[in-house]
């Protein structure tokens, strides 16, 4: 799992870029949280109909990285605790359902997260929803108990819908789509 050893340096890097690009374009913001959250880059260039704010960009990156950290933990340990910190709505319901099914069947997944490239594609004018495309590099091992069933190490692409909460942004919808789509 890739992580940045100095998160504060990453934050500084983001801030510099935000201020540099006064036209509300985030070319690439990166942030890593702690030692286990994956690296997430956000590109919000050309975002419409509302431009992204500096704080919003930083928050999106932080909580999306945390979401994947907690998702990987949940799929591996078959535990739903903590998913509500970053997931809500359909995304949370589906994950809870899946983990319940994993527990029943004895299946679990080990996700090695090599990072995410997020492209923000829609931000509603009232700031209540943001749609993003995530190009993720994931290595996914599927186990039945301790038996390794399958290993996938291919790029994954997700359509993501995030909505703001009181103090964070939540992943409301997370759908994997075929990478060949020209979004």
């Amino acid at each position: 799992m890739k992580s940045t050893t100095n998160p504060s340096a990453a934050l500084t890097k983001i801030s510099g870029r935000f201020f540099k690009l006064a036209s509300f374009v985030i070319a690439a913001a990166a942030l890593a949280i702690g030692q286990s959250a994956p690296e997430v880059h956000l590109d919000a260039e050309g975002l419409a109909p509302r431009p992204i704010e500096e704080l919003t960009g930083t928050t999106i990156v932080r909580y999306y990285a945390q979401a994947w950290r907690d998702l990987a933990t949940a799929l591996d340990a078959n535990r739903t605790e903590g998913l509500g910190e970053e997931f809500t709505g359909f995304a949370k319901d589906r994950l809870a359902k899946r983990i319940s099914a994993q527990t029943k069947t004895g299946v679990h997944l080990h996700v090695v997260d090599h990072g995410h490239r997020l492209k923000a594609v829609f931000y509603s004018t009232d700031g209540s929803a943001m749609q993003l495309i995530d190009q993720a590099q994931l290595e996914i091992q599927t186990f039945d108990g301790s038996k390794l069933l399958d290993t996938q190490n291919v790029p994954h692409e997700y359509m993501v819908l995030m909505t703001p909460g009181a103090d964070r942004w939540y992943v409301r919808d997370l759908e994997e789509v075929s990478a060949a789509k020209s979004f």
Partner: protein
Amino acid sequence: MKPTFLSDLQLLKAAALLALCALPAMAADLRPPATVQAGQAFSIPVQGSGGATFYLVGPDIVVKREVKLDSAVQVQAKEVRAAGRYQVILCDSGCTSASFEVKAAQPAHLSFFLHPSRVPVSTPNSIDATAFVFDQYYNLVLAPSTVDFKITPASGAAFSRQVPTKRGVAWLRTDSTRNEGRVQVTAIDGNVQEARVVQQVAAEACGLRVRALPSGKTVTLETDPVRDCSGNALPDGTVVSFTTVDRDGKSTVDTPLKKGIAKTQVSIHGPAQVTVACGVVVGNEVSLSGKL
């Protein structure tokens, strides 16, 4: 005895045979369709014999069951309701896997929000409508469709705008109309529709006028009915400020509109100037001689 030698071809065949014997038995072949519509049952052809364990791993489901390899593996409609990528794994002596994508079905729900809830009349680009298109299983419908935004003012003709969806989202920005009141915006995609309401309110006051009517030792200050430039009455409660400057100095009285009119009584000492303001709008000025 004449020695016998194997030809190159015979050696190759023997080596291939040994290699095949040395390999573990191969898992059955698994060929799901590349894409499936959400909520539609289908079968996956398999090639092999005997039994195997079948796994289906999707966004909201994990299925594990024993299957016979002499017939296709059936996947039920309820097992593929969530859009996304699914993985199928078949294990007998070894495991083989494949993946397929479940795509959203036809639009069945609209998640529609309208912003803001109150807006001044005749304001350009002041109303925003956004619709997310979902299927019956609440998968975002990524296939393009068209959302028809129908705008129905309280008075005046309704009109509509067609907006194609992009990645399941359609949005519209439009001007508020001239008249105050309830404006209904309905998003329609096929047979699905959702309505929201925005309340249009009067804009800033326009042509604000005050009159001064002497009554005894006081002066009654009264505005004409306060309206915006489109003729809409400003709502009661809107504050109007009367400012008088006389011999004793400057004083201001804030008065809410009642029945569209602001009215107050002031005492003045000597010649005075009276002005009126409402929000950012300043009205006329009245001069009083001081002889009441």
